[in-house]
């Protein structure tokens, strides 16, 4: 497995030419993160964690470009936005005509904690092959009041309940990296 910490890479327009497992990670960063998958049997996972506060303004653009057949890409970006923070996400899954057998997944989940937050999510798909399976999903919303109620009924304060839920939301990615790839950020 090759681990790519995008916060530490100078060039984030990345071309993968060898099969194998790749894991890319980004946190609280703006920029363009482009992956050209030019070999078969690439298994690429891309994770992003965003924790917006005050006047933070994150703008990111991701591209999962399948230029060869039979590769997999899986993107998950989770963000929590408080105060007057802004998040602008545009993502593209592009599958070329010859990239039959591609699997591509793209997911963006956002939690909004303050009324002054602005979130923009534009996950695009451009698919030119037919033997593919692609899904994308995007959710943006507030903390679930039922979840908070449940925790409070167990004697946890309102503030602690919210913190627990927010931490749990973001921990999904860190937990994945640790348990599946034995990587700690």
């Amino acid at each position, binding site marked *: 497995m090759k681990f790519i910490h995008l916060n530490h890479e100078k060039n984030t327009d990345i071309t993968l030419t060898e099969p194998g497992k790749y894991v890319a990670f980004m946190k609280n960063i703006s920029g363009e993160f482009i992956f050209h998958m030019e070999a078969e049997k690439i298994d690429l996972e891309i994770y992003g964690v965003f924790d917006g506060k005050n006047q933070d303004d994150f703008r990111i653009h991701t591209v999962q470009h399948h230029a060869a057949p039979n590769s997999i890409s899986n993107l998950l970006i989770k963000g929590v936005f408080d105060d007057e923070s802004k998040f602008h996400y545009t993502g593209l899954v592009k599958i070329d*005509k010859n990239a*039959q057998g591609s699997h591509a997944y793209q997911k963006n989940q*956002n939690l*909004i*904690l*303050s*009324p002054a*937050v*602005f*979130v*923009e*999510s*534009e*996950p*695009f*798909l*451009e*698919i*030119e*092959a*037919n*033997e*593919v*399976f*692609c*899904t*994308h*999903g*995007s*959710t*943006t*919303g*507030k903390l679930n009041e039922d979840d908070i109620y449940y925790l409070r009924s167990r004697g946890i304060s309102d503030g602690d309940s919210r913190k627990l839920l927010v931490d749990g939301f973001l921990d999904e990615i860190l937990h994945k990296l640790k348990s599946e790839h034995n990587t700690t950020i």
Partner: protein
Amino acid sequence: MQTPQDDLQFDYKYGFSKPENYSFKAEKGLNEEIVRNISKRKNEPAWMTEFRVKAYKIFLEKKMPDWGGDLSKINFDSYYYYIKPVKDRANAWTDLPDEIKDTYDKIGIPEAEKKFLSGVSAQYESEVVYESVTKLLTEQGVIFMDCDSGLKKHPEIFKKYFSTVIPPHDNKFAALNSAVWSGGSFVYVPKGVHVKLPLQAYFRINAQNVGQFERTLIIAEEGSYVHYIEGCTAPIYQTGEDSLHSAVVEIIVKKGARVRYTTVQNWSNNVYNLVTKRTRVEEKGFMEWIDCNIGSQLTMKYPSCYLMGDGARGEVLSIAFAGKGQHQDAGAKMFHFAPNTSSRIVSKSISKDGGRTSYRGLVQVRPGAKNSSVYVSCDALILDPQSRSDTYPYMKIKESDTNVQHEATVEKLGEEKIFYLMARGISKGEAEGMLVNGFIEPIAREIPLEYSIELNRLINLEMAGSVG
């Protein structure tokens, strides 16, 4: 691997063209004089003439959209902008000229009329030539007539709402429509009135290079209900020249009212279908768009709801089918301006034989739209390696107390499902037709039976080259 089927060689059922017989035909192309002439020939009030001229100037200023489908081949000078089909309006079916009747017979209007006594308004070329409104509707105070008559007979209502939902500035094609509009429907449903049977209108393009620019205005007063159906089929021309259809549909849904607008669009493959459709939904109102796009060479259409009042709801159910040489760029727009508003978009698209489908959607949650919810689901089927599918959702969220969900999938027809059906003695083409019909069924069941049967047949035709 799936083997792509041969090009479909079936005769296009509605691809017949009748000799032209028009009492007045404008010259090709567009200038201010033609715009004034259209208004003059229609005996319109001065404010409408000025509105058209102003819109024409906006049309000249506005840029062509540089996103979506390929519009580079459109030559605005090659179209006729106004054609009047017969000297006077026919009052009864028997008064219609034979060739027009014949054309309608082939689409099945008489049956439609028998089945839906509610009212038939059929547009042949640029003006409504046949119109029958049942006594019941008139007694209920419902107005259902072509838009030109609406302007003359109900000027107060017309002027109050016309162009308030879609101003000419909105986009180049809305400006063009505003300058040269002709025909379309004018519907007014008074407070509390429920129109039980759907109102329907058919549109056809017949003369070569006729641009059809109908304008529809629907007003549903407080607590009322109406279902409006628009179905289109158009003849294919041998010359391969293109034609332009650019309609504007404005709907106002007042407090607690509900409007359902169903479209079955099956223009022939030389038509550019560039349509602006929008609804303003007030408190607790409910707007449903059911939009089926099967025909045309390029469709760009995004029915939208402006949810302005507390508790307003909007829904778009959309089916797109793109075959050889077709691009369906369709979707929906939802704007949440008020608290407790909710919207739902469900889109199903199928591309085949090199066709391209694009879902393009915009969801905006404005500050103050508390406790609002948005659900968007897009599923696409790609049937062969030549075809293409895109998904372009835009979500802009400026409110924390909201819940926005979007999901999309793109896949091919399940080989196991086809194998299962073939093992039961069903041919491959039929099996694919069944699966595609199953795929769109959640939306197809929302449209009236005879339309869903027609849709089902069209899909089978496109899939296997034969009907059932």
